[in-house]
């Protein structure tokens, strides 16, 4: 199952294929729904809008595409890309192939922070998005630090310890989140429906609010890829290659946690994206983060767009939380990785 380095398709080819694949996924996901809209109409409508050729030329279809479906599809893409990129970052920094925002407790910590913000008297409208994201960010950082400290033995952090500590921190954060909900029954349903991953309230405003943070996290992480490569040699050898190891770790973990926290604030807890996507991409393009990170970003976006489409369509007209779709795909994947890890395979 391990694709040897010689069997890898040209990494740049995969990277190049990622962009049209993502565009196709966006158009396809936008065309499917209660009202089916031909893909050509979708493409034409998007083209008109992005080239500023006026609004509303095509009436109802245009409204559905531009006001209803496209924001949701793009938000799912943004969250998917960010979670996948954060997962790839944690995997690199902790040298732990099982690190995922969900598995190492970051997402649950962010969830707890966000739940506290939601039930608090702080205003919960679009202007309140800042509070939810801020609390989620603080929760994410606290969880990542706590997990790391719990798992540490001396100067090393064994992979299995790290995941176990993540499970413990996640459980504690989830329990605390439940408590927060119980104590605030009035808002419990808001927290609950959001917690399991929800893109139903997507809008251009949400995208606008989130994109500076998310965009900044992408740029910083993509600029650190070659240094993160060196980290795979171990801290000492990375330091002798000119990497300021502690600074690199702190910057990338904080930035990845910021991205995760914004995603959690936007759409709740969506697990396993950060695990499945980087791993699948690594099998395709190899371990070089300079290629792996952009590929992961593109395919993470594509993956969550399709997962959200599944969430909309499987029980239509009823909607499933998208977190259930990703968990259904991700947990068998995780178990396979765990077994391989035990046998010392990549």
């Amino acid at each position, binding site marked *: 199952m*391990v694709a*040897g*380095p*010689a069997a890898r398709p040209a990494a740049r080819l995969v990277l190049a294929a990622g962009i049209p694949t993502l565009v196709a996924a966006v158009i396809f996901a936008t065309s499917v729904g209660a009202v089916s809209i031909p893909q050509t109409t979708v493409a034409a409508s998007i083209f008109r809008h992005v080239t500023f050729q006026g609004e509303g030329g095509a009436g109802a279809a245009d409204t559905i595409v531009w006001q209803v479906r496209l924001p949701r599809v793009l938000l799912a893409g943004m969250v998917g890309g960010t979670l996948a990129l954060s997962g790839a970052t944690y995997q690199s920094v902790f*040298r732990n*192939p099982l690190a995922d925002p969900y598995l190492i407790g970051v997402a649950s910590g962010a969830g707890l922070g966000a739940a506290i913000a939601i039930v608090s008297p702080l205003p919960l409208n679009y202007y309140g998005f800042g509070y939810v994201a801020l609390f989620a960010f603080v929760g994410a950082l606290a969880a990542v630090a706590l997990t790391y400290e719990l798992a540490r033995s001396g100067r090393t952090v064994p992979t299995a310890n790290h995941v176990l500590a993540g499970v413990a921190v996640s459980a504690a954060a989830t329990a605390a989140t439940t408590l927060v909900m119980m104590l605030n029954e009035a808002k419990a349903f808001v927290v609950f429906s959001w917690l399991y991953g929800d893109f139903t309230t997507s809008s251009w405003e949400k995208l606008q609010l989130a994109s500076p943070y998310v965009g900044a996290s992408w740029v910083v992480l993509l*600029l650190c*890829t*070659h*240094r993160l*490569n*060196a980290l*795979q*040699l*171990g801290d*000492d*050898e990375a*330091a*002798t*290659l*000119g*990497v*300021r190891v502690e600074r690199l770790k702190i910057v990338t973990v904080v930035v990845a946690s910021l991205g995760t926290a914004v995603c959690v604030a936007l759409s709740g807890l969506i697990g396993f994206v950060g695990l499945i996507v980087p791993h699948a991409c*690594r099998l395709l393009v*190899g*371990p*070089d983060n*300079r290629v792996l990170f952009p590929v992961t970003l593109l395919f993470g976006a594509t993956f969550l767009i399709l997962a959200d489409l599944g969430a909309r369509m499987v029980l239509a007209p009823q909607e499933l939380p998208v977190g259930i779709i990703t968990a259904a795909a991700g947990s068998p994947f995780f178990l396979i990785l765990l077994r391989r890890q035990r046998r*010392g*395979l*990549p």
Partner: protein
Amino acid sequence: MNTQLSFEGVEVRLGGRAVVSGVTFELGDGEVMALCGPNGAGKSTIARAAAGLLPAAAGAIRLRGSALRSVSPGERARTCAYVAQQPAAPPGFAVRELVALGRLPHLGLFGAESPKDRAAVERAMERAGVFSLGSRPIGELSGGEQQRVSIARALAQEPRLLILDEPTSNLDLRFQASILGLVRRLSRDEGLAALVVIHDLSLAALFCDRLLLLADGGIAGYGPPAEVLTAPLLVRTYGTPLRVLSHPECLSPVVVHSLTGHPHIANQGGEA
């Protein structure tokens, strides 16, 4: 000849305790220095301090004449390469990909490799004798091959100074000879300075120009191997009976256990 590395009365502390102190030596272009001594004498500590991984608590470490602590990490990485005792074999990396990591200090903001970088990687692989392994996963290689790959990664940095921490300790006799032969050749042909931590005194005596013998964090002896490796000094340093013979082909010192004092290590009970 330029001095690449110098220690002047260096003390290194770990957890508040002075692990080595009063260490003074110089290492110039084309020189190979062996760092020897009993377990816990501070060999790896000196290697790590020389690589900039540990600060000097007292004294001065200089890299090409400048205080090591004032040299930027990038500049240091373009001058000095270090291979740890247990070189990493990160899963999923092919040999060529691992060697290419050595180009990091030469890459620009976006980390893209130029044709010059790719040529340097190929040259490093050729010199370390791992060119034919290029696309093999690093995890599949033997210990000796992995060690060579790590040295190739260090050579891809195009350093003037190479620091190797126990490069031969896990290798069989053939790989020991091939790794040390490689270091010797690089110093002779390219003027590379090398600092090599090594346990085996006889092997050290064969390939190094100078030998630094450590005992309890201080210098017990420093100079050409034939001058340092004398029986009385070694017996004192290692606290076990030893004898020094001459290599039958080149008169280089060969250190063996003496049976006088502890005959029980011999299979004949020392009576022969």
